[in-house]
């Protein structure tokens, strides 16, 4: 039964992805395969370059096994962070739970099946970030079959413990939802609390790192990472068993280490199932049926004239902000990531690095083009994690048909639906500019120019992403989580950002000799024109583009 349930849960999410893309002709299928193949090669290529350089460097100082520890640690860390979001959504915010409870299925079977889905979802990313580098390691060091078997086993077994631990924490937090009066606010606070813990943890790790780091070569940095691996090993014994099993050349040691790893995992899983039976349904039922605190109505009926655009955009924002899944996946990244990434670089610098920053600032003063294009490129980089436009239609699910029966032109609605993405982009741009102003000397005029051009590019990208969502909306979903995770469209923000960064780099190189403002002006005009053309296309084909919404 557990296996069958797992299959059903998995199948329903895969089917939903297929429905989004519909039945394609052979030509389209071939194109899709080519695109996937290209993407796979691209990702493998990047991982290869990254892995090759590190392994090669480590080999020179006879520290190559450190690489295995590092990769397994990354697998563990990635799994932990991913699970925080996926466990809340897969365990609690899936709509089919409601129809599952009345069926004669034993509680542990539901928990087991849901946990299996969690684990299988994590495997997808773990194979990419864990197994590929380990295979590259094996090839470079001519490892035998035992190494590959051990590597596969380690990547498959290690994530289980962090997944069940984090799921248990989530269950404990969610079990309070039954006793909270305001269910919505609780869900929001719980999500933000878990997120805050992750950020605090990541800042802690960086602080730890930066105090140990010197201004020497990357290899030494990686070697120091070994001390981090050792530190984490203390808290996570399975990591040590995993590393020992993969790095050992003795069959007996490998078997013993795996026996320990499997033993601990099996015992932990059994304890997990026992505890989860007590915790999971408490929170689940609270989540499904726990009523919100009712507020009586004292007339808030609008008596001031406002515009439809303002009301429409406000409605979009309310949906985004009040839904924990959308808040975490669509809104918060625009604020958190620039602060986290640039903040760590700017505020984490001390001693030698601060000196570097001053030198960089002086150098940028002499090369204005590099300064402006650099900031615009950074803004483009951060725009890839803003999913508001890319999910604008899909978020409405089957209710997206509402757009088609109200007496408001579809084009106008497309513009309103794009606005939140543009606004979130502008917030992200302002954060980047604020930090840039703090870190390097930059004139107000240049700040204004960087803001203007970045915003023009953001507007274009926002409309382009809406077009993608219109062409391939994901309208049938059982949980909001599917819109922001099981949605292939979300690869496009990344693709467009990289293409735009490529354009910036090429233009910068080609026009290096010109005064800085000329290439910047060309970039701005080009994107403005592109936006006008794109909006013209959206307006002309507004009804045809909505044909998938039905």
């Amino acid at each position, binding site marked *: 039964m557990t296996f069958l349930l797992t299959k059903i849960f998995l199948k329903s999410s895969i089917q939903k992805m297929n429905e989004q893309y519909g039945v394609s002709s052979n030509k389209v299928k071939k194109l899709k395969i080519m695109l996937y193949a290209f993407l796979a090669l691209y990702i493998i290529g990047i991982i290869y370059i990254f892995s090759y350089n590190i392994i090669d460097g480590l080999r020179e100082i006879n520290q190559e096994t450190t690489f295995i520890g590092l990769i397994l640690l990354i697998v563990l860390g990635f799994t932990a962070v991913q699970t925080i979001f996926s466990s809340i959504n897969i365990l609690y915010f899936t709509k089919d739970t409601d129809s599952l409870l009345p069926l004669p299925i034993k509680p542990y079977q539901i928990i087991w099946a849901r946990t299996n889905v969690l684990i299988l979802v994590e495997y997808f990313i773990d194979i990419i970030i864990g197994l590929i580098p380990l295979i590259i390691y094996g090839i470079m060091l001519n490892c035998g079959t035992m190494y590959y078997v051990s590597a596969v086993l380690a990547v498959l077994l290690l994530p289980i413990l962090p997944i069940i631990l984090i799921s248990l924490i989530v269950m404990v937090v969610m079990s309070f939802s039954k006793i909270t009066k305001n269910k919505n606010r609780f869900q929001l606070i719980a999500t933000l609390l878990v997120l805050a813990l992750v950020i605090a943890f990541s800042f802690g790790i960086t602080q730890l790192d930066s105090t140990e780091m010197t201004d020497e070569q990357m290899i030494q940095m990686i070697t120091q990472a070994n001390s981090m691996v050792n530190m984490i090993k203390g808290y996570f014994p399975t990591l040590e068993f995993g590393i020992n099993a993969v790095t050992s050349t003795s069959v007996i040691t490998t078997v013993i280490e795996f026996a320990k790893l499997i033993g601990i995992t099996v015992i932990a899983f059994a304890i997990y199932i026992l505890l989860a039976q007590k915790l999971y349904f408490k929170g689940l039922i609270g989540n499904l049926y726990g009523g919100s605190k009712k507020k009586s*109505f004292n007339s808030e009926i609008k008596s001031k004239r406002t515009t439809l655009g303002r009301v429409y955009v406000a*409605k979009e924002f309310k949906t985004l902000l009040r839904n924990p899944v959308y808040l975490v996946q669509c809104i918060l990244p625009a604020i958190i990531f620039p602060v986290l990434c640039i903040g760590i670089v700017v505020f984490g610098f001390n001693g030698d690095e601060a000196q570097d920053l001053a030198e960089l600032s002086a150098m940028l003063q002499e090369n204005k083009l590099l300064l402006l294009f650099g900031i615009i490129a950074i803004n483009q980089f951060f725009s890839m994690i803003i999913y508001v436009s890319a999910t604008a239609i899909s978020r409405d699910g089957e209710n997206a*048909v509402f757009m088609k029966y109200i*007496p408001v032109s579809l084009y106008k609605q497309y513009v309103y639906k794009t606005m939140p993405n543009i606004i979130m982009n502008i917030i992200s741009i302002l954060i980047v500019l604020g930090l840039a102003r703090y870190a390097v000397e930059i004139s107000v005029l240049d700040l204004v120019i960087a803001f203007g051009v970045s915003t023009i590019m953001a507007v274009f990208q926002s409309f382009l992403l809406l077009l993608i969502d219109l062409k391939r909306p994901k309208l049938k979903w059982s949980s909001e989580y599917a819109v922001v995770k099981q949605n292939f469209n979300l690869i496009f923000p990344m693709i467009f950002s990289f293409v735009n960064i490529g354009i910036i780099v090429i233009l910068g190189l080609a026009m290096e000799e010109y005064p800085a403002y000329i290439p910047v002006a060309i970039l701005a005009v080009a994107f403005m024109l592109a936006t006008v053309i794109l909006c013209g296309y959206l307006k002309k084909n507004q009804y045809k583009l909505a044909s998938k919404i039905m």
Partner: protein
Amino acid sequence: MIEIKNVSKSYVKGKKSVDGLDLEIKNGEIFGFLGPNGAGKTTTIRMITGILEPDDGDILVDGHSIRKEPLEAKKNFGFVPDSPDMFLKLKGIEYLNFLAEVYKVPLNERKERIESLTKKFEIYDELNNNIESYSHGMRQKIVICGALISNPKNWILDEPMTGLDPKASFDLKEMMRNHVKQGNTVFFSTHILDVAEKLCDRVGIINKGKLVFVGTFDEMKEKFKEETSLEELFLEITEE
């Protein structure tokens, strides 16, 4: 008035979900649209409201073609879809204010309209809560209030009685009767044959995409020469 002129729609090539449908819903009448599951009722309603584009034919709402003048046509009807699970994260009052803005309801009428509709359906005190916290019936009521907020001449309702309690159901039927008395139109689909029999001035029965009967209940009995219930007649017509 709603005029459906020779409308056809296929989802799959060679299989028509609605086939050459001709229908006129006159001013001052309640028209019940009946048919078994998958007969083409929802597809027809989706074409009338502009959600789906017909392959052939046209639909006019108060003389405005849904294909050529979609915005004008849409201004003239209020629509209640089959699922009331909409805008769940909005408060009831936010949803109604939003629709009032969409349909450009004058400010001086808005307050009064919202109050009278929500008090009639007994959801006035719930307006400050998220729609998500409403029961199925309450969600259905707020969607009906939203559809009627602009006081549209034509009401198009897809299974409007589903989930309503007896009082709300009674009130809605009363509102339908009063609405058509003022020379307006109500077009609704239903599975509840009793309601259709007692409420509708005329009914249309669709089966496998084709309109198999249109007329009054008496005309139906006349045509089939039988003194029997609508339920039995319906089964007989749709089994053919």
